[in-house]
């Protein structure tokens, strides 16, 4: 039971979850936190001829250059865009948009496949969701996805749709700068004005946030979709290529130079000198680059961020000195010159003790955790944030079927389908119980109610769906609906009231002390119930189709039945199970003949509907036998 946070980025995406009050990014099986937001449609087929799932993340990025036409990157920039807007972005990114026949949905050509940005994003989300599922050993309950603060309604809706398409429960979209602020715990200051400076690989965003009474509001945003750390790499690459005397480099040579540039940038984040050594086709370059030289190379680009900063401040009607804090987001804010420029401009040291690549995902995880209601951060739900004792209903023979387990975070909903035990049963009694013991009588009874009005049907046919919901205030509602007739009944219980911590503790202790005998009794009762069901079916068949009995079958069946009835009075579970199986075995040929005759009779009647009905019954009989 956990909610997760996903930072669905233009270049890279991450997933994080709060474990024991600490938000953590979940790594892939190679230990990497970032997953490239890249999807490649290889055109591979499943054995049945359908399209195989695309490659996602690192796998898709690996040979992206060789497979440029089928590899989609930066798809976030198309999310929720109109066709006209998308055309502009496509031109910039060298994408081919599929011609829409009079429709206004943006569709991207990926090889011979046509996909929507929502579909592509859904694949990225699904990969991260599966990772969370693996790490948590359970399916995440809900997901918070981050979006840029400037995303409009259409862009937000597209992001939500991608989440739904990926099969997840999207609880909320969270603004990226707000997520970053949450990760730094700024909401604890209860009020102030903050600026979030987000310099990624290819995009730059600046947001001014106002915090009042613990709630963030975005005052203004600005940015540049063509400014990022890649531009720093490019400057170094230009220098390397110039040194090698190469003009107009393309393909592998350009890529090698860019990679060397990126490595130098990384080295100069902590070091003062970078050693560059790179093979560029026939040429090779060995050189040194100092931090000072690097700073001068990139300064004009880094200073372009300040134009957006001024713009955002002007829109918010603020001065640089008005900020109560500066948050750095995005890997490129590791570059020392960027930090220096930001610090100078705002006149204060930026917050940087969290990994700038992870800060948005961490904030999303915190928000997701708040939404489970179990977080310490949520003060409105502090009184009761988990279900203190398991909740369930009494079933056949007085055993408890639990729907909601102890310690489940609230709000929570769970359903299970039950059926009737007797032919023509028109009502079902629902006994709502609280506790950890196996037998209903040892648990606390919370409520009883009746679902009436079930039409005459053979035992086992009605499907009664029972749903337990505990809302954020700890109120339990139980509803029961018969699925064919939609007959419905429900009740509301304030289940935590009247039980103190001591009583809860005592109930848990009792459950452990009686564990063995409880479970033994439960299994014994279950064995008896099963035996009685088999006996009832056998009795019914004997009275209806006695003429089909062959040889000494009647005698054998009667012997086993009597023996089974007898052991059911006692406590020998193994013996009850053995004789139940035996009764199944000795009646099998008889049952077979009954099915054959029913089938034959129906076929003679030539009524197709009747044949189907008989087939249904046969299938059901076979299922019952298998169970």
């Amino acid at each position, binding site marked *: 039971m956990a909610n997760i946070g996903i930072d669905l980025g233009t270049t890279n995406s991450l997933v994080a979850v709060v*474990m024991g009050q600490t938000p*953590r990014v979940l790594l892939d099986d190679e*230990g990497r936190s970032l997953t490239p937001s890249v999807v490649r449609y290889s055109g591979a087929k499943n054995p049945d001829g359908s399209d195989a799932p695309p490659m996602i993340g690192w796998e898709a990025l690996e040979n992206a250059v060789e497979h440029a036409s089928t590899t989609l990157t930066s798809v976030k920039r198309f999310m929720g865009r109109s066709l006209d807007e998308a055309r502009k972005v496509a031109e910039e990114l060298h994408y081919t948009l599929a011609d829409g026949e009079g429709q206004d949905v943006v569709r991207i050509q990926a090889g011979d496949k046509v996909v929507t940005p929502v579909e592509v994003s859904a694949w990225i989300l699904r990969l991260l969701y599966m990772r969370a599922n693996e790490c948590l*050993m359970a399916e995440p309950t809900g997901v918070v996805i981050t979006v840029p603060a400037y995303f409009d309604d259409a862009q937000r809706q597209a992001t939500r749709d991608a989440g739904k398409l990926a099969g997840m429960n999207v609880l909320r979209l969270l603004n990226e700068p707000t997520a970053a602020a949450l990760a730094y715990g700024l909401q604890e200051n209860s009020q102030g004005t903050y600026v979030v400076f987000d310099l990624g690989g290819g995009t730059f965003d600046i947001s001014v946030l106002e915090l009042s009474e613990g709630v963030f509001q975005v005052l203004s945003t600005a940015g540049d979709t063509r400014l990022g750390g890649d531009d720093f790499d490019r400057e170094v690459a230009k220098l390397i290529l110039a040194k090698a005397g190469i003009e107009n480099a393309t393909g592998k040579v350009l890529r090698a130079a860019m990679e060397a540039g990126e490595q130098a940038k990384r080295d100069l984040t902590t070091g003062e000198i970078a050693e560059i050594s790179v093979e560029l086709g026939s040429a090779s370059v060995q050189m040194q680059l100092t931090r000072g030289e690097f700073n001068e190379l990139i300064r004009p680009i880094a200073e372009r961020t300040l134009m957006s900063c001024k713009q955002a401040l002007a829109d918010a009607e603020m001065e640089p000195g008005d900020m109560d804090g500066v948050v750095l987001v995005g890997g490129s804010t590791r570059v020392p010159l960027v930090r220096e420029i930001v610090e100078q401009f705002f006149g204060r040291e930026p917050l940087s003790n969290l990994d700038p690549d992870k800060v948005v995902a961490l904030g999303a995880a915190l928000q997701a955790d708040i939404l489970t209601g179990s977080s310490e951060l949520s003060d409105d739900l502090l009184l009761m944030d988990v279900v203190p004792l398991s909740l369930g209903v009494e079933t056949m023979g007085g055993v408890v079927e639990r729907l909601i387990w102890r310690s489940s975070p609230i709000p929570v909903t769970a359903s299970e389908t039950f059926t009737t035990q007797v032919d023509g049963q028109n009502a079902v009694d629902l006994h709502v119980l609280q506790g950890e013991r196996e037998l209903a009588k040892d648990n606390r009874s919370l409520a009883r109610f009746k679902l009436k009005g079930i039409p005459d049907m053979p035992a086992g046919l009605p499907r009664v769906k029972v749903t337990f919901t505990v809302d954020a205030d700890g109120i339990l509602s139980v509803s029961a609906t018969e699925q064919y007739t939609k007959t419905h009944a429900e009740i509301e219980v304030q289940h935590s009231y009247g039980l103190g911590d001591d009583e809860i503790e005592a109930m848990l202790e009792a459950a*452990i002390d009686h*564990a063995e005998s409880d*479970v033994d009794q439960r*299994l014994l009762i279950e064995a008896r119930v099963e035996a009685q069901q088999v006996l009832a079916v056998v009795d019914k068949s004997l009275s209806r189709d006695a003429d089909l009995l062959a040889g000494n079958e009647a005698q054998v069946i009667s012997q086993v039945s009597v023996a089974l009835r007898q052991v059911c009075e006692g406590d020998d579970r193994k013996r009850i199970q053995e004789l139940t199986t035996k009764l199944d075995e000795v009646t099998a040929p008889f049952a077979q003949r009954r099915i054959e005759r029913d089938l034959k009779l129906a076929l003679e009647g030539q009524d197709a509907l009747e044949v189907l009905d008989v087939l249904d019954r046969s299938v059901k009989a076979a299922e019952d036998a298998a169970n």
Partner: protein
Amino acid sequence: MAIQITDRAVTRFQKLRMMRQTPDHVLRVGVRGGGCSGLSYFLDIVEAPEAKDKVFTFKEGEITVAVDRKSYLFLNGTEIDFEKTLMKTGFVFNNPLSGSSCSCGESFTL
């Protein structure tokens, strides 16, 4: 008798701990009523065992497996393994106390 864990399961558990960035967390296993054959297993990775858990350590204390007392009654002698096949990937329980399992292997009866 106690709880055992195979090398494959240890490797898998260590990988999951790495992915979660929780290298010191412990594996908690147990049994619940429910599932198609009466009882079902559950697994979780948690920060520490609960106060009354039975605790087993492996690999010179690097791996800890915790079982609550109630579940231990049904898991004594169980070997935790990890299986990767076309049909399913996951931890499996080889439980000598188990009478019969359902075909999905997630639940059992005694």
